């Protein structure tokens, strides 16, 4: 009969990676892997920064909006219509769906609480989080989990870059992240629309006086963020498999990344993502389990977030804003 197992002591690691200078290829591989994971975080962090830069709101429901869209795409994929079985098509549709969803959420849920005190907005976004999570579970989670979600590039084929092999799909995420960063940077800094959005975030009243339709700017900001989130979800799902909570770990790291890089800085989000991705890997590999080990990577990332908020709230690359009373 199976008695109670007190549990064998797990404190002594059987394998501690050799120091970086002893095994450069492992070190290099960990860094490359970290950059790839970091690209995941960067993508979602960009969505967070986008909303913050354009509407000055932290969207706690970001992950669930992306999850909802991804599940919707999954249903479309399963419907069997030939056009919709092409994963590239799904990616595009995910973006469009996210666009629409962001706009609808802004109009219906966020607009009534614009300008209200912080608590209201926080509670509303949290409520949205709960609602989307529950509804998605109700609709899609009756069968076996996790679900399979297709990716445009194979998750199995990889490209050798020096000592590291990079899966094609991860390269795609990297590329999309970089493209998003560039496009967003261009949008915010070189277009009239971007200028209008920034003005709205900084001072809605003055923006309105200058003739900017503040309402539309807010909608555009949320719509773009929704689109980015939808694409991120569709790209991340093949990696972490699809289930109602699949975006949650990502969003936590993404928040840390966004804060680290600067909540109102687009390149900051990307840099923050990479730092966290690489840091996570190096920590897991090179610290003994008894002290830190891989299970502490999330708390450490979150603690880093707290420290950054306290010490340098605008993050590494953010701009300081002065609030006038």
């Amino acid at each position, binding site marked *: 009969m199976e008695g109670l197992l007190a549990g064998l002591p797990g404190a002594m690691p059987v394998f501690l990676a050799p120091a970086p200078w002893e095994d450069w290829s492992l070190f290099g591989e960990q860094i490359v892997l970290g950059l790839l994971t970091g690209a995941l975080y960067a993508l979602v962090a960009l969505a967070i920064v986008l909303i913050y830069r354009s509407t000055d*709101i*932290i969207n*706690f429901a970001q992950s669930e909006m992306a999850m909802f869209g991804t599940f919707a795409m999954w249903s479309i994929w399963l419907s069997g219509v030939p056009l919709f079985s092409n994963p590239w098509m799904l990616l595009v549709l995910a973006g469009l769906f996210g666009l629409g969803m962001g706009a609808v959420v802004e109009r219906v849920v966020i607009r009534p609480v614009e300008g*209200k*005190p*912080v*608590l*209201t*907005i*926080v*509670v*509303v976004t*949290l*409520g949205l*989080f*709960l*609602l989307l*999570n*529950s*509804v998605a*579970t*109700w609709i899609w989670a009756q069968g076996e989990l996790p679900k399979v979600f297709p990716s445009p590039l194979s998750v199995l084929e990889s490209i050798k870059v020096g000592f590291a092999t990079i899966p094609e799909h991860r390269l795609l995420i990297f590329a999309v992240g970089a493209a998003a960063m560039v496009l967003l940077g261009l949008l915010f800094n070189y277009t009239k629309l971007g200028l209008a959005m920034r003005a709205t975030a900084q001072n809605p009243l003055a923006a309105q006086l200058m003739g900017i339709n503040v309402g539309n700017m807010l909608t555009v900001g949320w719509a773009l963020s929704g689109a980015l989130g939808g694409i991120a979800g569709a790209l991340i799902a093949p990696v972490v498999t699809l289930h109602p909570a699949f975006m949650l770990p990502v969003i*936590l790291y993404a*928040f*840390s990344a966004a*804060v680290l890089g600067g909540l109102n800085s687009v390149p900051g989000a990307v840099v923050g993502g990479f730092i966290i991705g690489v840091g996570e890997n190096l920590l897991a590999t090179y610290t003994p389990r008894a002290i830190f*080990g891989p*299970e*502490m990577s*999330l*708390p450490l990332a*979150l*603690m880093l*977030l*707290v420290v950054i*908020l*306290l010490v340098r*709230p605008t993050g590494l690359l953010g701009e300081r804003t002065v609030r006038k*009373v």
Partner: protein
Amino acid sequence: MEMNIWLFLVLSLGVSGLVRVAPLGSERQRILASLLVLLAFMCWAPFVLDNFRLIQMTRIATLGLALLGLNILTGYNGQVSLGHGAFVLMGAYTVAVLLDRNEQLNLIDATPWPFWATIFVAGFLAAAAGLVIGVPALRLSGPYLAIATLAVMISMPIIVRKYGTFTGGSQGLGFSRPPPPPFLEDLLRREQWLYFLCLLALVVMTFLAWNLLRGQFGRSLQAVRDSEVAAAAMGIHVARVKVLAFVISAFYAGVAGALLALISGIVNPETVDIVQSINYLAGIVIGGLASIMGSLIGAAAIVFIPSDAASELAKLPFLDANMLRRAPGAIQGAVVIVVMLLMPYGVAGAAHRLLRLRPERALARWREAPALARGALQRASWAWDLRPRSAGQGPGQNRPQGEVVSHGEGGKATDPEGDLTKGGQ
């Protein structure tokens, strides 16, 4: 005798509510009387409710304390904290460690701790933690504070699980729940005794909170919430007030956690997690921000909605019972959203607004109705009255003489659209 819980609640709230508005005595006497009536009903509860509902009521009492603490911090003082659960968890673990591990760890001395002492320790330790969190929190505002507290709350169970020598790791700690004291042993079951313990703690600490909040401190809290700059300009030491708010709310949370541990007899990292912490926030929003009653109502909501909303809704004929019972999470989310939409000031706020309606004016208008009708008839009588008229009377002049007509007073009955944070008392 066993009574249905809803019957019991309707009875107790209804009777005390009637006492509150009965046209007898002064306002203060009415409030006091209604509270005493409510307390009497709550003392009667353990003898008329079955064990399951009694345990739920006990849990409501402990959560009420936790929510009261959160309301002090967030409702009265405006600091949004998603990490309140961390203090509750701390309180729970303090009790568990003192009662379970003391011999092994030889903390103070090897003799077992009396349970009531552990409650105090839990409260003060949590308050100390509140200090540690509250000081850096001064630098954060609004959503930043929310994120930071969210981060702390998510990390805590992971850390607790990892560094497990002290905390029992993922297995958690277990101990036996305190039995009734000798002089009550024959009168009360253990569940009843625990209920009274929590009720006592609730009453005492609610009274303390009420005292605190209606005095200068309470006003300082709200002043800081409404405008830090203005508050500072009026001489309020803003930093001290904000940190104190954290400390006090953490104390309440610690005590709540201690009681939660004592009534369950087991504490593990899942006892309070991030979902619970978010639920606390939802609870005070539903119940009513900046309102003591609201905190208690919110606690009841947090306990009853997950437990009964699905089965009660299933009784409606057009809803499929099976589907509903299988997805209680969706129902919870929906109920929370609906409540927040319909009652943006929370249940307590809605009740307060109900009480502030001016029934006399409405009744006065009703009383005037016959007179108004007569006046109208008089005015119209010219149609069949063929007597010669003097100037000043006729179809063009339709204001009756000597009648008092009240103008649009009803508009004032509704509050101007304001902040979510300004609720009832």
